């Protein structure tokens, strides 16, 4: 088991390199936007990965509330943290793409705005975890995750309706997609998903090590007091 992670990491690195090659050289050029459109192959997979990770966080949080399993709590923390990283990338690449194409940095585009709100919710989740000292932090965080999840459909509808009232440019392309582009998109998604798994796994190991060290240190200070 210990050797699986480095092997997977190497495989992922190769996959990412291949996906990059596909995105830059193989994928056909988009008619209206030109080469800039290739940001799409990083922007969209990052969004899908982030949403997937946040879903994992929700499931882990619910499992934690039901079973009080420390492993579930660790998975929740890890998926939230890595999810925020991917979410940040969506929020950075989105405006970088929008600027040359539409001349504006931001728009109340449905996916981008939803990503922003999710990012805010999960950053607040991470802040809660960091600022909360009690042993009950996992429970509080799990509850917050559930609140966040309940919020998402409401956010979706409010943005959707707002956009019908105030039409905005759509980042990320509406409509149908060229099958060759879809192929490249899926390869990049696979690559980034594997990357997310590798990073989460590594972060999970770190978290377990952290907890073991914390426990050992507090045990030691306890023993020290007894002497």
């Amino acid at each position, binding site marked *: 088991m210990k050797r699986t992670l480095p092997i997977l990491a190497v495989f992922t690195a190769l996959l990412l390199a291949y996906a990059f090659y596909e995105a830059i050289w193989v994928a056909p050029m988009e008619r209206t936007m030109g*080469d800039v459109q290739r940001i799409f192959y990083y922007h969209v997979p990052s969004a899908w990965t982030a949403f997937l990770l946040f879903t994992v966080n929700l499931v882990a949080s619910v499992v934690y509330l039901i079973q009080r399993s420390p492993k579930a709590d660790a998975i929740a923390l890890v998926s939230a943290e890595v999810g925020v990283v991917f979410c940040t990338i969506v929020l950075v690449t989105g405006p970088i793409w929008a600027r040359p194409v539409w001349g504006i940095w931001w728009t109340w585009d449905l996916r981008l705005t939803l990503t922003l709100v999710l990012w805010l919710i999960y950053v607040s989740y991470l802040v809660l975890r960091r600022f909360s000292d009690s042993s009950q932090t996992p429970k509080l965080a799990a509850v917050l995750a559930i609140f966040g999840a309940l919020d998402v459909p409401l956010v979706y509808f409010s943005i959707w309706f707002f956009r019908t009232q105030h039409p905005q440019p759509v980042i990320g392309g509406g409509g149908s997609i060229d099958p060759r582009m879809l192929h490249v998109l899926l390869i990049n998604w696979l690559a980034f998903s594997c990357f997310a798994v590798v990073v989460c796994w590594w972060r999970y190991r770190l978290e377990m090590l952290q907890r073991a060290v914390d426990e050992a240190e507090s045990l030691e200070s306890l023993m020290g007091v007894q002497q």
Partner: protein
Amino acid sequence: MNAVKYLWAAYIATWLIHGIYLGSLARRYGRLRQRMKDLGKKEK
């Protein structure tokens, strides 16, 4: 095409963000391993 610099900016930004995160993880790992070592020494 002038807009290509945005393409590179986006790709570089992506890997920069990933790199910063992974770097912070690596640093935490190092510090934790040091603490483990210190704990091991104290027990002896």
